[in-house]
């Protein structure tokens, strides 16, 4: 949200160029061991490694500094680093003034958490559908930039695309700036005040991290940032799975902008993704709220009635996003093909619209209330992986039908006869009306396809063998399901079915595969071609998203992937050309990274405003007098000289100067302050988790005022400091298993490595409860309980938080009631709470009790 694209800014291999690496919100060595290879290489080259984490893990074992913190207190820790950086004037001044919005003025009516004891201006009660879960909401008008009065003199338009006039309507006068940063309403001064209370003493009080350790981290990152040095941050679900997860990540981005570490080699924010193609699943999304290429899904809650309405509401007049009409029209052409014409808004009226939060948690809550009839569970196992999993298993029993497509009979597929609820008699198999249909699934190596990994790299995988028996690939299943449904709708004359009838759905192979017994496996290259894009009339592949048009003459499903398949026979996702030894070490010939094969995003910032590298040591992309060039594909218009001024009244990138590296932001700047995009505040603020053993030591406001909580009898929360649940519980994964265990608990070689569920306890906590190593222990929360064997270890340690000793308890959550090795479902303990931006649950910090079983 601060930088412009929802993805890692860098790639793991580039971590080798870092002088310091901070891993926080991630157990990288255990959960991303292959990417961690590059961290170890950096360390061999002399880089400092810091791990900030509640537990001492296999990552901490490799680190120069392990900073223990209380689970959920990361914003206090990062806020402390921001305060230290500002107070000691260690920020990268030239970078901050030129490349961020530090100098921009914010409206006079903006009130900070400093003014309102923990909340921002604009807070109001939530009045929408309770299923959306919000406990409050913000009106964000007061968070906007202060702007000059409109002069009413837009620049003379040049040759226009059909929607340019509409885009131009959205132009706003430029925001006011004070490059001296002295004005009290500059972002910089607001930032300085906002974080001033995050002192080292306060960091220690809130996080429990000893002050000396915190200061060692602060000194290391500031000493290793600047023109000649860079520090990188790596995070994973240790940051996302909180009621303020996006704020943790944006807090890190803010710090990295202050230190001048974005867009530069060995810098950045490395988002570590949990699955092989989780990045791909948001690029070409399985998300409900976003359509391909990070465009917002049409919604009945906004003014999205016609295509023009949608584009008027969604298009930014300045930044590369000004091209959204081209992306959207090309996308609609990929949906409805020839049926999408200028006269019918390219079929926009047929496109499904959202009416609220349709993400996993509210969907399961609705299911538990009997409002959902059927469900497909493909590559997902909510009976184990879902939060407050007991509620989710009971919800499955309310379905009419459930399709599970997986490699093994998962807990979700077996809930009706083998779940704890059935075993306990709470549910009876005979009473469960759900018809469960189990489809055996092919494995990855049994079909062609692509992964888009943590570094936005689209990589092709080739089929090695036919799947056994009736096992079929996901693409086979989805394609043929679509075909059969289209056949069922073919004769419908209902207007609501017109879109489904018009849906472009033709991925048949031109010739059946000779080397496979599955003759009707769809042609994955046809899917790739549609994602890449082509000229509508000729079918000629597009080479770049710069070729997209808003008049229907181009078809492209996901604009950000445009260029991956620039010509027939040229699938760049399958290209495997590494750099020669001593080469630029960006490996641009190895697969294809979106956007436009750029490996480090915002890399214009690796050069000074005048276009020269910040230092010889950190050379990456620079202006050679005629064009931008360097070791990577420039993330900037190649011919735009550094000194080019922004064009007054210009749309798109014309509005930006030659020194504005953040091309996806309307002002071309990295956002230290986010006037838009985050629902829970323009600046990160420390809140306590929805369940916490302590009152918020920083503000009167305890938890996020706009978090999501689904209040139900089977989803109770413990009150602040509830003596019955005195300990902090955090859940996590182990190297030896994968998620709910479907790819590991069924495999003896992996199962034997971590065969049983355990709970990690410090010797101090174990002694308090008379628990010895390997004793059975019961862990309780207001939602449920689980039994696990005790693993008593000095790797866990009590922390002193606000003068009180806080014990932390750790549990991996890979076990369930199916498979070679089984154990209690740890997610039965967690709650249905979520952050307001992306509805991600809070499984990293809640409260519990422990007792000897």
């Amino acid at each position, binding site marked *: 949200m601060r930088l412009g694209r929802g993805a890692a800014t860098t790639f793991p291999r580039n971590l080798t160029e870092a002088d310091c690496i901070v891993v926080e919100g991630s157990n990288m*060595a*255990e959960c991303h*061991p*292959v990417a*961690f*290879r590059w961290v*170890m290489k950096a*360390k*061999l080259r*002399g880089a400092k490694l810091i791990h900030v984490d509640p537990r*001492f893990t*296999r*990552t*901490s*074992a*490799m680190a120069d500094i*392990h900073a*223990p913190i209380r689970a959920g207190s990361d914003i206090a820790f990062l806020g402390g680093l921001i305060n230290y950086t500002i107070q000691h004037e260690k920020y990268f001044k030239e970078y901050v003034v030129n490349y961020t919005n530090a100098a921009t003025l914010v409206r006079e009516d903006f009130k900070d958490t400093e003014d309102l004891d923990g909340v921002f201006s604009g807070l109001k009660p939530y009045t929408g559908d309770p299923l959306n879960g919000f406990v409050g909401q913000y009106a964000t008008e007061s968070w906007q930039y202060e702007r000059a009065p409109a002069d009413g003199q837009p620049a003379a338009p040049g040759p226009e695309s059909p929607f340019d006039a509409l885009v131009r309507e959205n132009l706003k006068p430029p925001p006011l700036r004070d490059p001296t940063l002295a004005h009290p309403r500059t972002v910089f001064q607001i930032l300085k005040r906002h974080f001033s209370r995050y002192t080292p003493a306060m960091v220690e009080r809130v996080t429990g991290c000893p002050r000396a350790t915190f200061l060692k981290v602060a000194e290391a990152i500031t000493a290793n940032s600047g023109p000649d040095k860079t520090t990188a941050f790596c995070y994973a679900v240790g940051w996302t799975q909180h009621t303020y997860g996006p704020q943790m990540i944006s807090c890190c981005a803010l710090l990295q902008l202050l230190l001048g570490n974005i867009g530069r080699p060995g810098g950045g924010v490395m988002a570590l993704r949990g699955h092989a193609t989780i990045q791909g699943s948001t690029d070409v999304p399985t998300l409900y709220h976003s359509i391909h290429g990070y465009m917002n899904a049409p919604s009945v809650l906004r003014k999205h009635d016609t295509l023009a309405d949608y584009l008027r509401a969604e298009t930014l007049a300045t930044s590369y996003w000004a091209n959204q009409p081209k992306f959207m029209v090309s996308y609609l052409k990929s949906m409805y093909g020839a049926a999408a014409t200028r006269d019918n808004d390219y079929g926009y009226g047929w496109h499904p619209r959202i009416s609220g939060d349709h993400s996993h948690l509210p969907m399961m809550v609705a299911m538990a209330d009997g409002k959902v009839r059927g469900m497909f569970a493909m590559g997902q196992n909510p009976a184990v992986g879902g939060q407050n999993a007991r509620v989710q298993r009971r919800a499955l029993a309310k379905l009419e039908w459930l399709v599970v497509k997986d490699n093994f009979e998962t807990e979700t597929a077996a809930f009706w006869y083998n779940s704890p609820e059935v075993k306990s008699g709470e549910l009876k198999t005979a009473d469960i009306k759900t018809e469960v249909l189990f489809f055996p699934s092919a494995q990855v190596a049994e079909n062609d396809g692509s992964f888009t990994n943590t570094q936005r790299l689209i990589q092709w995988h080739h089929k090695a063998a036919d799947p056994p028996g009736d096992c079929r690939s996901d693409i086979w299943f989805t394609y043929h399901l679509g075909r059969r449904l289209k056949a069922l709708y073919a004769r419908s004359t209902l207007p609501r079915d017109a879109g489904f009838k018009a849906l472009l759905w033709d991925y048949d192979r031109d010739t059946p595969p000779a080397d496979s017994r599955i003759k009707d496996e769809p042609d994955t290259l046809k899917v790739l071609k549609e994602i890449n894009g082509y000229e509508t009339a000729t079918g000629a592949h597009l080479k770049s998203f710069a070729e997209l048009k808003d008049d229907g003459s181009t078809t492209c499903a996901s604009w950000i992937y445009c260029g991956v398949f620039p010509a027939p026979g040229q699938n760049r996702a399958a290209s495997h050309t590494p750099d020669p030894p001593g080469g630029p070490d960006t490996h641009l010939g190895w697969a294809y990274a979106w956007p436009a094969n750029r490996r480090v995003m915002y890399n214009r910032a690796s050069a000074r405003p005048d276009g020269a590298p910040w230092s010889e040591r950190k050379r990456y992309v620079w202006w050679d007098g005629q064009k931008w060039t360097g070791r990577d594909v420039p993330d900037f218009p190649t011919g735009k000289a550094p000194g080019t001024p922004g064009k007054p009244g210009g749309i798109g990138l014309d509005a930006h100067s030659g020194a504005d590296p953040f091309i996806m932001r309307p002002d071309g700047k990295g956002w230290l302050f986010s006037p838009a995009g985050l629902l829970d505040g323009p600046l990160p603020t420390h809140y306590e988790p929805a369940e916490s053993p302590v009152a918020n030591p920083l503000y009167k406001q305890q938890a996020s005022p706009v978090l999501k909580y689904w209040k139900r009898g089977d989803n109770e929360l413990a009150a602040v400091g509830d003596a019955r649940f005195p300990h902090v519980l955090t859940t996590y994964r*182990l*190297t*030896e298993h994968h998620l709910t265990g479907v790819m590991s608990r069924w*495999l*003896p*070689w*992996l*199962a*034997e*490595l*971590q*065969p*049983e569920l*355990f709970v990690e306890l410090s010797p101090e906590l174990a002694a308090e409860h008379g628990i010895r*190593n*390997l004793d059975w222990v019961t862990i309780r929360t207001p939602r449920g309980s689980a039994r696990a*064997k005790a*693993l008593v*270890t*000095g*790797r866990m*340690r009590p922390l002193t938080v606000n003068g009180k000793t806080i014990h932390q308890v750790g549990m991996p959550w890979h076990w369930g009631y199916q498979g*070679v*090795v089984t154990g209690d479902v740890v997610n039965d303990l967690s709650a249905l709470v979520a952050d307001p931006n992306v509805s991600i649950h809070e499984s990293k910090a809640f409260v519990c009790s422990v007792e000897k079983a």
Partner: protein
Amino acid sequence: MPEPMGFFTDTTVCIGCKACEVACKEWNQLPSTDGGANTLSGHSYDNTRQLDGIHWRHVKFVEQFAADREGGRWLMMSDVCKHCVQAGCLEVCPTGAIIRTEFDTVVIQSNVCNGCRDCIAACPFGVIGTNPVSGTAQKCTLCYDRMQVGLTPACAKACPTESIKFGPIASLRRTARARVERLQGQGRTRAYLYGDDETILGGLNSFYLLEDRPEVYGLPAAPKLPSRNLVPGSLWSGLGALLVGLVGLVSFRQRRMEENGATRGEGRRNV
């Protein structure tokens, strides 16, 4: 004749991921403890517990945490057969099943092994065990089959951090010594090599970089060959033989005396 080949395991970069254990099992098609339904050992993250006939690679976890947690360490080490230059197992094998290969590694030929277990007792590192599937003694072969076609052993290939390095012993030793020097320069003064020269069993073709005493990693400080007992053992045997002889003489003498007595008075009992 190819050069002597082996492993250099740098424990300071081992992240304990156990990819080596799994890659080894997959390549060598080894079974799992109780079909995977193993039990929790309670000893850190080590649940496979030891090297034996079905675990040819084994990652050890050593937790060192004081009450105040100052300077806490979690040591990890991927252990394997040492492929000793003077190999105890090879020395005691009665059937000649254990051979030294052209790569100077030590391999048990399963089809020659009679399962007598002498090698299991003879290994000073506790590397060998019986594989219940074959009923024979088994251990790491340094992927002899892969090496014969120029491939890296499975464990080294799978190791994400290059903690396990494979190559000619001479070059591995150079790499290892440079690495120790570098670590020493960074202030990690406890770093040293174990088994990189002739002092331990004539040299280990799988040697280690450690940061604590060998015993902390479960390695003997001064491992001995079974034949070390040959000289003292034969002295004891000589002495024993002498004693047996003396006892024999005495008892024969006694018996004769008794026989004489019996002849004298209890002759019927012996009839």
